[in-house]
């Protein structure tokens, strides 16, 4: 029993450490009905293309809430700079919606897509 414990605890520790350090790629995926960040940003894109600014703003608010949830989940395994960059991209999208500037929003959204693919 003691021998089992001596080997089991370190193996369990290494395995759980590894899981924590690599969890970003799957913890960014949606777990609930209100945390599908990628889908919300895609919705913002389609609303902006149709110049549907009110719906774009609603989708942005959902995206912001989803990001606050995801950020807490993935912060242990991703680089701080990536989190800061996604934060900035979302704030710029918010500014673009306020200014009804579709060009600025689209460039930020595609920057976000790139970050989102790499994060985790």
């Amino acid at each position, binding site marked *: 029993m003691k021998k089992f414990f001596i080997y089991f605890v370190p193996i369990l520790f*290494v395995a759980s450490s590894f899981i924590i350090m690599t969890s970003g790629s799957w913890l960014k995926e949606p777990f609930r009905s209100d945390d599908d960040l990628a889908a919300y940003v895609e919705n913002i894109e389609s609303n902006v293309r149709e110049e549907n600014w009110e719906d774009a703003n609603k989708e942005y608010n959902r995206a912001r809430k989803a990001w606050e949830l995801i950020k807490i989940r993935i912060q*242990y395994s991703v680089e701080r700079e990536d*989190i800061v960059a996604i934060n900035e991209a979302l704030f710029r999208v918010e500014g673009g919606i306020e200014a009804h500037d579709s060009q600025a929003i689209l460039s930020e959204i595609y920057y976000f897509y790139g970050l989102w693919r790499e994060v985790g």
Partner: protein
Amino acid sequence: MQESLVVIVRASITFFTILLYARLIGKQLIGNFTMFDYINGITIGSIAATLATDLSSKALVHWIALTVFIVLTILLQFIGLKSRYLSKIQDSEPVILMQKGNILEKNLLKVRITKDELMQQLRSKDVFSPVEVEIAILEPDGTLSVLPKSDYQTVQKKDLHVPAEPVKLTTELIIDGKVIPQNLEQRQKNEDWLMDQLKIRGVKSLKEVSYAALLPNEMFYLDKVDDNISDDLNISDYDGPY
């Protein structure tokens, strides 16, 4: 980002990873601290510090670097065990610095050690005159091994034909009021014998005992929690607390 929380998690991972890896490396690192071991240890420490606190990069990257260093260290240990030649390449060979009282300047130059440093190392080995040295060897871990000339070697019991006694270790029997049955058994004693010894010395309860041991000469050593020490030998100059 909750940076404090992330640092707590990363520092905990680092702490226990180092603990685990240090156990895997074994005691060899502390025993034979060659220059390579020293630099390797510092590098591992530096990577571990980055793993704990550098939030600008992924923890996994540093953890992998730490693991690679440990794996390579263990690999080199095994290579050293399997091949004496490769072990010498890793750790270098011992170098003779003095022979029959003479300083070997060429070898000193080879290992870049000054005469002052050599003398300092000799003094730390209680050798205060180079004349006393038969041979002085610089070991790969940087320590100096000195064999004094026969005239300067200490007298051993067998030189004086004094009958030898078997050597034993001090065996701990009670620590902080807790009896260690395995050690009692080792010295062929039992708890009744232990209790008798305590009773003779006026101990009523095990709680009164801080440390008890059986010395190599079969004497019983007892240290009580209550030391009953007077203030005569108090070396403090002020009342304190400090």
